[in-house]
């Protein structure tokens, strides 16, 4: 007996990842759905509980603040994976490679180059200098291979027509790769049957790829075997689990600011056998807290003298200081033009239509349609500070209007994208929930995109907010490997009696 997970499933007019129309799954999902339906609701619930216990035991948690002490929460992974075909993926991959190349060129141009894009009028200088993320302290410090965004997380959404668009760029400390890898491990443990005969591209090589990239940006003084460390703010940071994950998967030390010391512009870590030289610091600390001599003097998380060492070329800081200017949401609006300027190519992945509010005409038009648009602050992370026009109250819209008029540089307006939805297990059946996708891109001498990425789910019905800190969840993301003929592959059908766990199927 197949369970009735999807009996009452409705796409409700949204682009649905799984269903072309009610009851009609897309080809690359049909076998998966069939397999899923062999599990009863109770069986799935049992596996969900096991998933929660496993995640908690392993400490795969993040910490939510805003309550008295930080509370550790597990980031709920929905049991139904999201599947991307090989053809779709090759389009996304090409778009991401192009975009990250442009962003790296732009940042290098600004910090060590001639500021050509500014000189040639592609982006105004004052937009750059007024960005919170523009770091004057990084001026003139070169980055090996120009790989300023060595790790980039480019958030993609799919609109009502099924077109993938870039929603935002995260170029400072994009997080979530640990969930990508752990979700895959969890799926293989909880629902191994779903993978049968399915060419899902692996993601567990991330540590190796990242370490390779970090080694390639080490300074020449490092020699053949650079010493790489992951610099964390510490156990109280909400993403601490990921920092541990990164250090463990690369086999390198996880350090805090107080474990490092700078002597004569060289960085060392304090070990039981004395000081050991460090060549690459993969830091998951914001610029502002990185070095109290040069940035916030009250920061106890950073390493005094680190910037001086970087300037002298004895150590490489990853991601480079000052990337925030390129993930400023106002600068985001210029990326298509920058793509044409640096590469002489049309952007493969389009932006979401964005309005810059210091322009009087754009401002007027936006203020006229405030209740139809999404208003975002240019420098916030975690989905905070966003006003979604159609869902906002009159007071919220009025405040929004005031804020825009008072400080137009601080806000952008975007058309509301009707995000795609994906069936998600809610109680004993499936319901559509809005999702996005954060693929991870590594840049060193080449650009490498990790297959898939983190699919984030807005767990609350109707909500468009997917961030973990605000009640989001995730899905394992499967990118199908291309078949030999290059034809779009499908999750293949398997007879139910050949398949382990068939005995558990209720009649």
């Amino acid at each position, binding site marked *: 007996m197949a369970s009735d997970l999807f009996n009452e499933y409705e796409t409700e007019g949204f682009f649905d990842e799984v269903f072309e129309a009610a009851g009609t799954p897309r080809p690359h999902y049909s076998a998966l759905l069939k397999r899923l339906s062999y599990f009863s609701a109770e069986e799935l619930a049992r596996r969900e509980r096991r998933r929660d216990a496993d995640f908690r035991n*392993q400490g795969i948690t993040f910490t939510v603040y805003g309550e008295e002490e930080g509370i550790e929460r597990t980031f709920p992974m929905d049991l139904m994976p999201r599947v991307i075909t090989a053809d779709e993926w090759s389009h996304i991959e090409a778009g991401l490679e192009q975009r990250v190349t442009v962003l790296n060129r732009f940042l290098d141009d600004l910090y060590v180059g001639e500021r050509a894009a500014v000189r040639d009028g592609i982006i105004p200088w004052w937009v750059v200098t007024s960005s919170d993320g523009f770091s004057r302290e990084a001026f003139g410090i070169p980055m090996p291979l120009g790989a300023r965004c060595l790790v980039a997380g480019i958030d993609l959404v799919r609109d009502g027509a099924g077109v993938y668009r870039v929603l935002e760029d995260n170029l400072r400390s994009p997080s979530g790769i640990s969930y990508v890898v752990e979700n895959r491990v969890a799926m293989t443990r909880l629902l191994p049957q779903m993978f049968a005969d399915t060419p899902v591209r692996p993601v567990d090589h991330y540590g190796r790829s990242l370490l390779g990239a970090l080694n390639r940006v080490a300074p020449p003084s490092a020699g053949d075997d650079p010493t790489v460390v992951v610099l964390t703010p510490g*156990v109280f940071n909400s993403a601490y689990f990921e920092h*541990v994950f990164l250090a463990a998967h690369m086999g390198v030390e996880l350090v805090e600011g*107080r*474990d490092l010391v700078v002597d004569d512009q060289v960085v060392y*870590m304090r*070990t*039981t056998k004395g000081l050991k030289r460090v060549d690459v610091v993969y830091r998951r600390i914001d610029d502002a807290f990185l070095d109290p001599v040069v940035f916030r003097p009250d920061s106890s998380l950073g390493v005094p003298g680190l910037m001086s060492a970087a300037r002298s070329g004895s150590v490489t800081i990853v991601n480079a200081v000052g990337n925030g200017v390129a993930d400023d949401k106002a600068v985001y609006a210029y990326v298509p033009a920058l793509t044409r300027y640096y590469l002489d190519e049309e952007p493969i992945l389009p932006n979401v239509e964005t309005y810059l509010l210091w322009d009087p005409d754009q401002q007027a038009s936006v203020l006229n349609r405030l209740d139809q648009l999404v208003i975002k602050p240019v420098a916030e992370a975690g989905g905070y500070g966003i006003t979604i026009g159609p869902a906002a109250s009159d007071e919220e819209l009025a405040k929004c209007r005031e804020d825009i008029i008072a400080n137009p540089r601080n806000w952008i307006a975007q058309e509301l994208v009707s995000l795609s939805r994906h069936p998600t297990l809610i109680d004993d059946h499936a319901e559509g929930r809005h999702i996005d996708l954060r693929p991870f891109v590594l840049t060193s001498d080449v650009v490498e995109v990790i297959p898939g990425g983190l699919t984030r789910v807005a767990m609350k019905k109707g909500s468009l907010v997917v961030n973990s800190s605000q009640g989001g969840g995730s899905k394992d993301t499967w990118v199908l490997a291309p078949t030999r003929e290059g034809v779009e592959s499908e999750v293949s059908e398997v007879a139910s009696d050949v398949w382990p766990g068939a005995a558990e199927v209720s009649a």
Partner: protein
Amino acid sequence: MLARDAENLFWAGRYLERAEDTARLLDVTYHGLLETNAAEQRVAWRSALEAVGLRDAFEATGRALTAGNVSEFLVRDEENPGSIISAVEAARENVRTVRESLSTECWEAINSFCLSIRSRNLEVEIEQQPHELYGFIRRQCQTVAGVASETLARDDGWRFLRLGWHLERAEWTCRILRVRQVHLEAPGFHEWVGTLRSASALEAYRRNSRGSMDPADVIEFLLLSDSFPRSVFFAIRSAETSLRELGTGEEPSQPLRLVGRLRAELEFADPRELLSGDFEGELIRIERAIRGVCSAVGVRYFINIHDVDLHMLQLFPGAGVE
């Protein structure tokens, strides 16, 4: 390895050992008193607190000296840094900050121990089924130690973890011996059995000495046995091995020197001589020597990074000093 990580593992080892030994002591004390009167009970609980080194701390709470209060204090009082729950939480925190240098199994073992102890109704269990509770705690500690032993590479992290265990264990056994031997009026058969049980030594002792409860034999066993893993000598010798392995091949480090001397003393000690002299004084001296090794370890390996609180330096024209 990172000096801070080494320090965390050293302390994790000590906390785990402390939790296990406290649970064992409580179990033995509680059950050893079931057939005694109130006065004897008070004496026994007082000596248990002494054995843990927390007599003053307990008295400072102002609570009455009863089985219930002492058990609560030693098991679940979060204000008491020496309680079992504090030790387990501290061990977990220490391991959490170095988990990337440990195996996943190791982290999961300590993490699930901590989660399960948090989820138990300790208040009820202390009162109604203490033996089960203490047995659970001991088994969990042993599980963590076993997982660590089976899954960790024999590197410096492992050595510091063991070093912490062994130094803590040595100090414990020494203290138990001192407190029980000296503070009980005239330790008789039952008291010695209790002492041996507190060190999980009863069966091994019996196999070794075939039922004799001659004080000299018991003391020799607990203090000087080279085959029983919980004896002070054995623990000190294991600590010496760890410190030797941590050495860099040049001169012996200060902690290695200190522990080596202590081990040599114990190796060649004569139990009858000890007993006929100032035995309590000797035991105090040994305990002090063990603590000396612990501080020497800190000075030598855990570069004191707690002083790094940074102060800003800024000068303002006209206003001068800042």
